[in-house]
């Protein structure tokens, strides 16, 4: 299925041609016509995984829908509810047709009943709407929110319901939009798939690492001179990826966003692949890299994030609704200098308590972030309990 192989090392995600279809076809070549079996084989061989956060095997997900006798619904998820992530918006602005290519390839191969592109209401969807219109893809603007892009919450909204996750007992690949088997893929995953089908699995796997091939988009933010979105090989060294953004004095890097985990300044040599990031209980996720300056108090910063996470609970599941605000309170007190030695233990206990006890990933992700904060900034926690803050001292010294 492999056709003309591009000669550059760039993965072509960010140097698209905007909404101009002719220019897109000239740049990337025609869209191959591939049947379901061919497409599945290629995607399977490529080892492509979801780029929206979950990191699940894309081939496995497609197969779950392909197995159904009912015609499925294919959904591109561009909601990007993570405040630190901008890569989906940048991709959609620069390379909308590559995302649409992914949707069209899947819709054709799976004989889908419909293909939908879900985008945040707040985004300007005029150009993408025009581009999608004559390609049989329906663009649906939806309200945002942190959990709105969780697979079951997205399906719920497309069915006319609120942005609330559903009980995952029934998988959306079995019964999703309108009760039909539904394939939800992140928009970057769709763009990657469009490249994989065009240029072949071996092209895709020629960069990255053996157990985690290809490339990813990363959104770099925080204490850097040039925040923005870059594309890098999977398995790139964290320090090297950050270099383009010119970070200031790095205290730690939050990898994977608000549901992610911290990599301390001593760990910048880690490779951005789930196997190596597991050391820090982190994963590549949706490619968020947020730099915390070493003069900023990490506990204060984390407390703000957990406050936000608690406020973004859909409020449906008791442990999340009750546990997250209490976890946020305790962390805020610790950050503010309450010298209560019971606080770290109480926070840890709450983080274990909410884990695995909700309809979506929100309690688990929030708990992971909190546990990582206590682990990575252990010295900082101890200092706060003694009544001082190492970051405040560094600020005073500089």
């Amino acid at each position, binding site marked *: 299925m492999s056709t003309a192989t591009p000669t550059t090392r760039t993965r072509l995600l960010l140097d698209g041609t905007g909404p101009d279809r002719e220019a897109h076809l000239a740049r990337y070549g025609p869209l191959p016509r591939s049947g379901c079996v061919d497409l599945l084989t290629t995607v399977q061989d490529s080892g492509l995984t979801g780029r929206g956060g979950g990191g699940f095997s894309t081939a496995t997900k497609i197969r779950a829908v392909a197995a159904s006798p009912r015609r499925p619904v294919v959904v591109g998820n561009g909601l990007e509810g993570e405040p630190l992530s901008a890569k989906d918006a940048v991709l959609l602005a620069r390379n909308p047709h590559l995302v649409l290519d992914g949707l069209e390839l899947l819709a054709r191969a799976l004989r889908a009943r419909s293909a939908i592109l879900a985008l945040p209401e707040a985004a300007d969807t005029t150009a993408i709407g025009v581009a999608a219109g004559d390609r049989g893809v329906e663009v649906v603007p939806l309200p945002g929110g942190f959990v709105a892009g969780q697979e079951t919450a997205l399906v719920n909204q497309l069915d006319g319901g609120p942005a*609330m*996750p*559903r*009980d995952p*007992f029934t998988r959306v690949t079995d019964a999703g939009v309108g009760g039909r088997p539904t394939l939800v893929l992140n928009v970057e995953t769709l763009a990657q798939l469009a490249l994989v089908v065009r240029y072949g699995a071996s092209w895709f796997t020629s960069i990255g690492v053996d157990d985690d091939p290809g490339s990813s988009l990363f959104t770099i933010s925080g204490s850097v001179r040039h925040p923005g979105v870059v594309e890098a090989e999977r398995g790139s060294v964290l320090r090297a990826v950050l270099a383009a953004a010119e970070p200031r004095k790095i205290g730690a890097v939050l990898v994977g966003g608000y549901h992610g985990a911290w990599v301390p300044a001593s760990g910048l040599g880690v490779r951005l692949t789930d196997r190596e990031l597991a050391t820090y209980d982190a994963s590549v996720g949706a490619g968020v890299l947020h730099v915390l300056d070493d003069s900023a108090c990490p506990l204060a910063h984390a407390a703000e994030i957990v406050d936000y996470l608690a406020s973004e609970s859909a409020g*449906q*599941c*008791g*442990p*999340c609704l*009750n*546990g997250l605000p*209490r976890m946020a309170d305790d962390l805020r007190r610790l950050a503010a200098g309450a010298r209560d030695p019971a606080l770290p233990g109480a926070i840890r206990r709450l983080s*274990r*308590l909410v884990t*695995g*006890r*909700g*309809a979506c990933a929100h309690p688990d992700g929030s708990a992971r972030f909190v546990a990582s904060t206590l682990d990575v900034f252990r010295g900082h926690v101890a200092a706060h309990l003694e009544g001082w803050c190492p970051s405040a001292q560094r600020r005073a010294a500089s």
Partner: protein
Amino acid sequence: MPLGAAEGGVVTTRLHIDWTRCDGHGSCAELLPELLGLDDFGFPVVRFAERDPAIPRRDEEAARHAVRSCPVMALRLYEPG
């Protein structure tokens, strides 16, 4: 041969909690004390930290009772596979 199959082909029954329905009435923890406790807020906690815990044979009847007794029908038993 996997251990489960060696146990005379017994299929394990698991308990699923629909957290979007559960309001913390607590009857399940009363009827299945070996398996479920209650957290600080009155919501069920699986004692051995499994998302959908396997139900030991001797607790199956009590589990069925708990499922029937939940006022918001947040519980169900199922056999994976």
